[in-house]
């Protein structure tokens, strides 16, 4: 499955990439330069520099989440590719695993590109940023699993808009991408601990700024825990969904 997706990716990467790559940059420049002019500094850095690592994390999130929802649903429901594969000597678990790995692959690619771009803009302060792809793998897994669970549940492709409105967009807004969540009410800060994006943002921001300490391992562990908890569900749901 992974190989199949990569063969397709090789053919469509240009349109794919520009799409995913232009949008984060629009956010980065509009918010960073536009809003940043009014805000000045947050935690001692310019606003654009503050949000840049968050944009890496969120573009990885969008990439993994949309691949594992819209992308996978089209392959499963309209193109019947899962059926074709399961009729061959593959198990549905392997097909789903391939889909998830591909979503992770995309998350890492898109996140890394944003990293390169912000490095070129001089927004990266520390060589710790080289660890970014590792964080992207964890984040990509978490979002891909969430997306696949949704794909295993929903009846129609339209139902994905709920996923994005109810889960992905709130996460995008309240995970500290654009402002420190310390300014929000206490319960939101507690809730943020359940959001994979929050941990990814904290990790990436610390790495990019070079503020590395042991506590970061807790955030990484939180991501790993989320992955472990979600891991069994996509495959079970998909087996049930296909009635096999």
């Amino acid at each position, binding site marked *: 499955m992974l190989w*199949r997706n990569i*063969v397709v990716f090789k053919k*469509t990467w240009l349109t794919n990439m520009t799409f995913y790559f232009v949008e984060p940059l629009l956010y980065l420049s509009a918010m960073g330069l536009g809003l940043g002019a009014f805000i000045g500094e947050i935690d001692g850095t310019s606003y654009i520099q503050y949000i840049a690592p968050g944009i890496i994390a969120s573009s990885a999130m969008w990439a993994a989440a949309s691949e594992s929802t819209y992308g996978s649903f089209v392959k499963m429901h309209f*193109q019947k590719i899962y059926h*074709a594969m*399961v009729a*061959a*000597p593959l198990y549905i678990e392997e097909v789903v695993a391939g889909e998830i790995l591909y979503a992770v692959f995309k998350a890492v690619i898109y996140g890394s590109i944003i990293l390169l771009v912000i490095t070129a803009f001089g927004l990266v302060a520390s060589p710790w940023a080289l660890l970014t792809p590792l964080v992207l793998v964890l984040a990509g897994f978490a979002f891909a699993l969430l997306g696949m669970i949704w794909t295993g549940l929903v009846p129609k492709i339209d139902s994905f808009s709920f996923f994005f409105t109810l889960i992905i967009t709130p996460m995008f807004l309240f995970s500290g991408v654009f402002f420190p969540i310390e300014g929000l009410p206490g319960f939101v800060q507690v809730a943020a601990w359940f959001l994979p994006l929050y941990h990814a943002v904290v990790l990436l921001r610390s790495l990019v700024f070079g503020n590395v300490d042991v506590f970061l391992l807790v955030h990484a562990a939180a991501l790993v825990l989320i992955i472990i908890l979600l891991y069994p569900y996509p495959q079970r749901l998909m087996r049930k969904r296909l009635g*096999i």
Partner: protein
Amino acid sequence: MPDPIVIAKQLTKNYGSLQAVKGIDFNIYPGQCFGILGPNGAGKTTTVAMLYCFLPLTGGKLEVLGMDAKSQQRQIKQRLGIVPQDNNLDQELTVLENLVIYASYFEIKKKDAEKKALELLSFFNIMEKKDVDVEFLSGGMKRRLALARGLINTPDMLILDEPTTGLDPEARHMIWQHLRLLKQQGLTIVLTTHYLDEASHLCDHLFIIDQGEIIERGSPLTLVERHIGKYVLEVELPEEKQELVLTELAAEIYGHQLLGSTLFLYMRDENQALINRLQEYPFISYQLQRPANLEDVFLKLTGKGLLGHE
């Protein structure tokens, strides 16, 4: 007779409370072209989907190529070729990529897969399309590609689910020709169809399934001989006259079937005298004598047309 390569005993499949396949028994022998015939929703697709280990059985026993369909799914699939009802080709890939990537699911080496793929493309006359994206192929070509894909792993048995549904007559004949060639090469073929002409053209042996149960089995010829005879006389007449005609002709005919205002009279042999006699009835608006076929068998056994719209 050699040992069967498929043995199904009391094969059962339930979807929730719906019994789609109700404990059927059948054997398939090597080299056979085996047909599974029935109207839409009869349980044909469910039966073959269990054969190729896509759907788990609810009950019964199923042995495919000497292996148990409950525990050796991967080994069985490795040796089967599948052509599903909806081609489910990969629309985003080219013709050749479809074959090579599908081959990778069988862990066939890329070099061997390409060689085999090119052989198959030339066999199915779609070589000139090898670098075209699948979405641009015609329906008949997609089917041929799906067939080629089913053969990429050089299977011991090819399973086709309604291979010509939705194709135009020329494309259907093309598929039939290829299937006959494959059969001559000794390949075992299992196909489901609701086209009776398709079954008579291709199958050596078949069963008719209706509402999850096998209602008859045998070769197309023996089934026709057993139930119908050699000829059928189709007669169009008002319903109130049907009984009169039937009583008068009872001695001449082998059997009959009524379907709306059409009366089907079964005859052992051609019977010109009978035809002449019928011409004397003024209320008969139409009559036709033709060779008996499988459709007559199905009509007789189920009391309805196979496509459900007659």
